[in-house]
């Protein structure tokens, strides 16, 4: 199983992870992070291919993808 965690202390709600996710796993939520921005949430975690593009693109080290892709 894949867990996608957004660190609300660091996320600035830039949505780059959302825009770069090839599988549309992520979407904006209505929750505010510490900096007052709306943070993303994994709305389709099952679609995630663990490409980690969201991780390498995130400017705020705020998203972590863990676990293995289901076979």
């Amino acid at each position: 199983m894949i867990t996608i965690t957004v660190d609300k202390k660091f996320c600035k709600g830039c949505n780059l992870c959302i825009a770069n996710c090839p599988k549309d796993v992520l979407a904006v939520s209505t929750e505010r992070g510490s900096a007052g921005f709306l943070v993303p949430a994994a709305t389709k975690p099952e679609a995630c291919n663990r490409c980690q593009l969201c991780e390498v693109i995130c400017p705020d080290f705020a998203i972590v993808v863990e676990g293995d892709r289901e076979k």
Partner: protein
Amino acid sequence: MHPIAEKYLRRSALPQFFCQGCGDGTIITALMRAVDDLGIIDDVAFASGIGCCAWIPVFVNADVLHTMHGRAIPIATALKLTNPKRKVMVFAGDGDCVGIGGNHLIHAARRNVDITVVMVNNAIYGMTGGQTAPTTPHHAVTKTTPIGNAEFPFDACELAKAAGASYVARWTTAHPRQITTAFKEAINHKGFAFVEILSQCPTQSGRLIYGSSDPVEAFNQVKNMAVGKAKAEKMSPEELAGKVVIGRLHQEEGRAELTDEVYALMSASREGLSAETKLASN
């Protein structure tokens, strides 16, 4: 926080204060991955000037000189010379690197000193609030070109190459993995390495030049500008207008390098010492 950040960030300097969606943050991650892959955190020495980009290494828990606007390169040169085993990296904004610091860039390139200069090009002076840079497109609107820029931008890669750089590459923040690779190549390259990264600055160039401070829009602007080297070679000048060629643009292996030369002359000197000079006996 991401594990790589846990491992490499300087805790006391956090939070990282770049604007929402600023490409500089992506570059920090790419850098940490390169440092991690090479296992060089204890051997690396960073120097940077002033500007948003100049803060990139400050957030990394390594030895860092955060110096003066435009002046990181000569400082880095001395860091290399005083310990040739150091891996020396400079992070410089476009203004820092080819604006005020342009002379240091071309001289370091001329000397082919074994350091890596990373220039983060956001086409503007970000930190001071969006004034025109020597990389700002002709006719672009910025805070100091309210009805358009009368000047023309540098091609920094061409400049570095003409000055003597022996490794030159260009990528964008839409290529985070390639940035990591380029960093590793540049660090391993013996000689002066120059890496330009086109990066989005939603707050200033996004808002002023490209008409939107939305991070995703700014990011896409940068992304869409890039054309791979191989592809570019097949394109006509008209097709290339407004585009920027990315890839490893130039590499010359085996060229004589400054640090080697300096130490070789030192050895030659020491052998001839007794004959030629007489110094106070202490």
